């Protein structure tokens, strides 16, 4: 298979699936089949890409046969491929889970076309090597997530969605203005070319200002302190499948963008930008975990924990050593799988008991021991119990923190880990153990076929968590390769600029006619 086709498959498959799902708008069953096939196809394509780049290094392709600095390029390095694979895994899990979870009314209103559209946006963001194109994929992702979050039209969903919508609109506009300013300074939008051009801009102060625009914009999308308030206000409102997908992936696309931009583009003033990131990381961890402590709704507790966990990933980026970035990437992989799984568990609990409130869930363990077991695995992994995946992720970050001498962030990270354990224990005690007094759990709720189907992806993700825990080696190696490529961005830059279809003679660029601001060497 040609490298070109392989690179665009993660976009083409969901696109075709979205069209097919629209054509079969009135046959929900067909749409469900299409969706599972589509997600499976993306997973297969992503694994194919992984084997391709382990053999041949970073893969680059152009769109529409425009030579490199002009046209849009798609670039796949190890970080991209890791993100593609993990998101496809969540895609498959949620596709199976959605079969019983998403009702026919929602399917008729276009759940599956938009689910695939969301996947296109996410995959596009991971693939692209062009800054403006990244903005476009973010918008594709955003508009489909808007639709998914309000689909069903319950009052609660609408009220949650409006916060999500307004703040994300503002965030996108900040991103857009950042893109505009970067273009004005350098005359290019190709990220590899920008990586070289930005360090030659005559006004380093201006570059730092633009870096802050990107930090705020992606910080909103990633739910970084103090820009996280929209997340716990909206993620608990849609059906469990949607919130699991969002919780696992959407904020992590923001994190991915931060990793990409603050390793490839804005490394001129690491002392300033990455110190700010580190403070953001620490405060994100603490506020998230404290917010979770006062919540009494299954999904709200989990939502606040997304915020706190984002802090760990950004900590890896902010420390900016190969080991720390490795820890950050490992944390992203671990977190996406574990967090999506916890939301899926909460959906089953709701289905069995009709509520997300911890109080009305009590005693689940007695009646549904398997669900309890499947909850324990991701919950303890999230809290960082050895030898589960979260433990390794936190261990790497801790070692990286000690190596750089940033002891305070290590102390914060460890303390937040303890609080996470407290929160998970709280869910365990309140929801799964029989409550002391108060209303006793109702009679055993019957387990329909639908609920049994929902156990499949949960068990699959839990098994995957254990795999990552016990055989952490392969994931560690992948994260290490990603971190190396991120830390030494020259490999990425060379792969793009020396691409076979690169225009050797770039020629004069229209409009930006040799005025100061666009000068850069190739």
């Amino acid at each position, binding site marked *: 298979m040609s490298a070109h086709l392989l690179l665009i498959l993660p976009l083409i498959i969901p696109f075709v699936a979205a069209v097919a799902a629209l054509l079969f708008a009135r046959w929900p069953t067909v749409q469900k089949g299409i969706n599972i096939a589509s997600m499976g196809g993306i997973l297969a394509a992503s694994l194919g890409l992984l084997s391709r780049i382990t053999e041949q290094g970073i893969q680059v392709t152009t769109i529409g046969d425009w030579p490199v600095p002009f046209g849009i390029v798609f670039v796949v390095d190890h970080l991209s491929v890791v993100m593609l694979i993990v998101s496809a895994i969540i895609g498959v899990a949620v596709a199976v889970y959605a079969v019983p979870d998403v009702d026919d009314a929602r399917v008729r209103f276009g759940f599956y076309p938009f689910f695939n559209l969301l996947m296109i946006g996410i995959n596009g963001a991971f693939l692209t090597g062009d800054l*403006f194109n990244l*903005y*476009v994929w973010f*918008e594709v992702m*955003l*508009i489909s997530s*808007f*639709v998914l979050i*309000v689909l069903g*039209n319950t*009052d*609660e969903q*609408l*009220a*949650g*969605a*409006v916060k999500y*919508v*307004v703040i994300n*609109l*503002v965030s*996108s*506009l900040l991103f*857009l*203005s950042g*893109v*505009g*300013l970067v*273009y*004005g300074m350098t005359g290019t*939008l190709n990220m590899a070319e920008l990586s070289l051009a930005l360090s030659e801009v005559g006004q380093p102060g201006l570059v730092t200002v633009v870096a802050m625009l990107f930090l705020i914009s992606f910080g909103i999308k990633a739910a970084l302190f103090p820009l996280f308030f929209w997340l716990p*206000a909206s993620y608990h409102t849609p059906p469990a499948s949607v919130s699991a997908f969002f919780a696992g992936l959407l904020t992590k696309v923001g994190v991915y963008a931060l990793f990409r931009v603050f390793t490839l583009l804005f490394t001129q003033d690491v002392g300033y930008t990455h110190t700010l990131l580190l403070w953001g990381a620490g405060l994100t961890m603490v506020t998230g975990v404290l917010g979770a402590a006062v919540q*009494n*709704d299954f999904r709200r507790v989990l939502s606040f924990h997304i915020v706190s966990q984002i802090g760990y990933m950004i900590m890896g980026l902010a420390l900016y050593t190969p080991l720390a970035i490795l820890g950050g990437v490992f944390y992203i992989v671990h977190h996406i799988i574990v967090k999506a799984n916890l939301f899926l568990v909460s959906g089953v609990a709701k289905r069995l008991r009709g509520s997300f409130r911890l109080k009305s869930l009590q005693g689940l363990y007695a009646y549904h021991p398997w669900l309890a077991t499947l909850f324990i695995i991701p919950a303890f992994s999230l809290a960082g119990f050895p030898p589960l995946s979260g433990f390794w992720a936190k261990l790497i970050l801790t070692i990286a923190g000690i190596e750089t001498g940033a002891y305070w962030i290590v102390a914060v990270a460890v303390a937040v880990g303890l609080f996470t354990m407290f929160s998970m224990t709280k869910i365990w005690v309140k929801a799964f153990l029989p409550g002391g007094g108060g209303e006793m759990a109702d009679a055993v709720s019957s387990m329909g076929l639908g609920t049994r189907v929902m156990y499949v992806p949960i068990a699959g993700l839990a098994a995957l968590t254990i795999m990552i825990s016990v055989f952490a080696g392969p994931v560690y190696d992948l994260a290490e390769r990603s971190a190396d490529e991120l830390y030494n961005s020259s490999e990425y830059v060379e792969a793009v600029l020396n691409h076979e279809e690169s225009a050797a003679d770039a*020629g*004069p660029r*229209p*409009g*930006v*006619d040799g*005025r100061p601001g666009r000068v850069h060497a190739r």
Partner: protein
Amino acid sequence: METLLALVTGAMVAISVYLLLQRDLVRKIIGVVILSNGIHLLIFAVGRMTRAASPLIPSGEKYPPEVVANPLSQALILTAIVIGFGLLAFSLVLIYRLHESYQSADADVLIEATLGDE
């Protein structure tokens, strides 16, 4: 000319920040619209203003023969306008539906309503 555009952009951003800080959701959305138009103007300005020809390449040539206006910033703005149009349409319908449900488009009412179930 660029200075003028920069000033206009600044004014528009200032207006939009004022509107975004209002409690009324409709005003917030108008703020978003003005912000997005301000940023389109910004992109237009950073593409450099010239009194040059349209960016058309005569057939048979590889590069335009003379200095031409920058087509890239125009393309970027066009894309951003189309995206912004879709998002605006969605937000307006969302607020309309919210108003149907809560009989109000005031952010405070919504916050009260969502806190009620805690």
